[in-house]
């Protein structure tokens, strides 16, 4: 049993070290790719960002609407329903926006990145690039990583914004909360530090989810089963890592 534990720990440390080296390589190649192959990065921002908009907008709207309903229901017990705008905004900007966007991002864009890179590996496309003296990390992996890193904070911002519209629709248009109070309370309660916390979280989650997605794809076993496993691991590990980072950043911010 101790031997198994030892080997598992050894494997974990080795994989974690390799992941860090991989991350350093991505960072090292990023300036060149941004400078010389900006078009590739833009295409990947489109793939990871624009193509995730539908799921982000629909989810954001309903999360905001539920926040509005719950906020109104609970706050009205204390005659504080005018504060529902502030509650919804703080919850969305600081917490739910970045976290739910990151989870959805891992499910939609992360899996697409992993399976695409994994399939390229399984069909020898990455080896073919190597043989054409083209570095696949620079040509394939870095643009996808950067695309995810840029897209994720933008998606989180859109999620929060649409969520606020959802809360507004439910609270103001349906439940009769005063529109002036809704926005004024929000303006008074939400500080720049709260928005910054949300921005920092979405950037960190974007880096983590994109890194894990391209890592899993690049290291997938080049078979149908291997690519499937890599895709599943991307979602599972990204979700866990996002929630752990969320706790850590929140703890530091408070």
């Amino acid at each position, binding site marked *: 049993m101790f031997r198994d534990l030892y080997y598992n720990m050894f494997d974990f440390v080795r994989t974690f070290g390799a992941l860090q080296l991989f991350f350093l390589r991505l960072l090292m190649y990023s300036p060149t790719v941004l400078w010389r192959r900006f078009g590739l990065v833009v295409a990947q921002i489109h793939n990871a960002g624009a193509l995730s908009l539908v799921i982000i907008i629909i989810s954001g709207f309903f999360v905001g609407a539920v926040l509005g309903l719950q906020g109104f229901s609970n706050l009205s017990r204390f005659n504080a329903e005018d504060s529902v705008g502030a509650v919804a905004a703080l919850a969305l900007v600081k917490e739910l926006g970045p976290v739910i966007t990151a989870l959805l991002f891992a499910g939609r864009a992360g899996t697409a990145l992993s399976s695409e890179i994994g399939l*390229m590996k399984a*069909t*020898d*496309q990455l*080896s*073919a*690039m*190597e*043989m*054409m*003296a*083209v*570095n696949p990390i620079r*040509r394939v992996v870095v643009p996808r990583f950067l695309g995810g890193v840029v897209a994720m904070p933008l998606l989180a911002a859109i999620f929060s914004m649409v969520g606020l519209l959802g809360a507004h629709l439910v609270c103001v248009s349906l439940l009769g909360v005063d529109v002036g109070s809704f926005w004024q309370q929000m303006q008074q309660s939400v500080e720049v530090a709260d928005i910054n916390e949300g921005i920092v979280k979405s950037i960190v989650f974007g880096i983590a989810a994109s890194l894990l997605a391209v890592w899993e794809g690049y290291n997938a076993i080049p078979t149908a089963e291997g690519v499937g496993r890599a895709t599943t691991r991307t979602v599972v590990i990204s979700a866990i890592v996002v929630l752990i980072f969320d706790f850590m950043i929140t703890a530091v911010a408070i």
Partner: protein
Amino acid sequence: MDAVSDNLIEIHDLDYSFGARKIFNGLNLTIKRGQVTAIMGPSGTGKTTLLRLITRQIVPDHGVILVDGVDIATLNQTGLYEMRKRFGMLFQNGALLTDLSVFENVAFPLREHTRLTNRLIRHVVLTKLHAVGLRGAADMMPQQLSGGMARRVALARAMVMDPDILIYDEPFVGLDPISMGVIVRLVRKMNDALGITSIIVSHDVQEISTVADCSYLISKGKVAASGSPDELNKASSDLVRQFMHGMADGPVAFHYDAPDYAEQLLGRDTE
């Protein structure tokens, strides 16, 4: 100045293991400049592995691989990529980039490594596609191509940078007789017209016999026989005869190592 050696690739005393399994054990082999050299052998003998070793996609446990006199183990990444620009490789399944059209697949190395104008790239790509008979398929996507067409596009891509060495990994597998004939003719035509050196990994004896100048038969990690296809056909060795004439049993056993048949059927092997 040194005279240019006849040997473009030399492999000396090569050892390579995959896990506990020894793939090559003291392999020695030379590829002559300007010739079509075939590397043959039963499935699982490491033919594709040998190609990966020659192009340093993997590194040997022991031994030296010289490409034009340069030990490829000594190259750094820049040197390795410079050397690989001299290679064109045709993968077994074509390995076309699925998000690019046929035209862009062939143009890919040019766009990555040169600063040619779009007009010039178009000329070069159409010339190469014409050579493989697929100029009309330039706008198609790889998913729309048959296996034979995909391999011809991959061949056009492999030669778009005018390489010195063209490597074919199992180019005849899964092709219908017409596509196979086309590829066989193209291999010979490209080699002679462009003055390049070709290496073909295959176990299709008939096709290889029509196209290769020299063949190596690899078995058990070593070169079991070498020579022209005619010489191999006339060889007296049991292994060569079994392989060249496609006999089911011989030195390469039909049955994989297994316990005694009767004992296994009676379930005694598990006791």
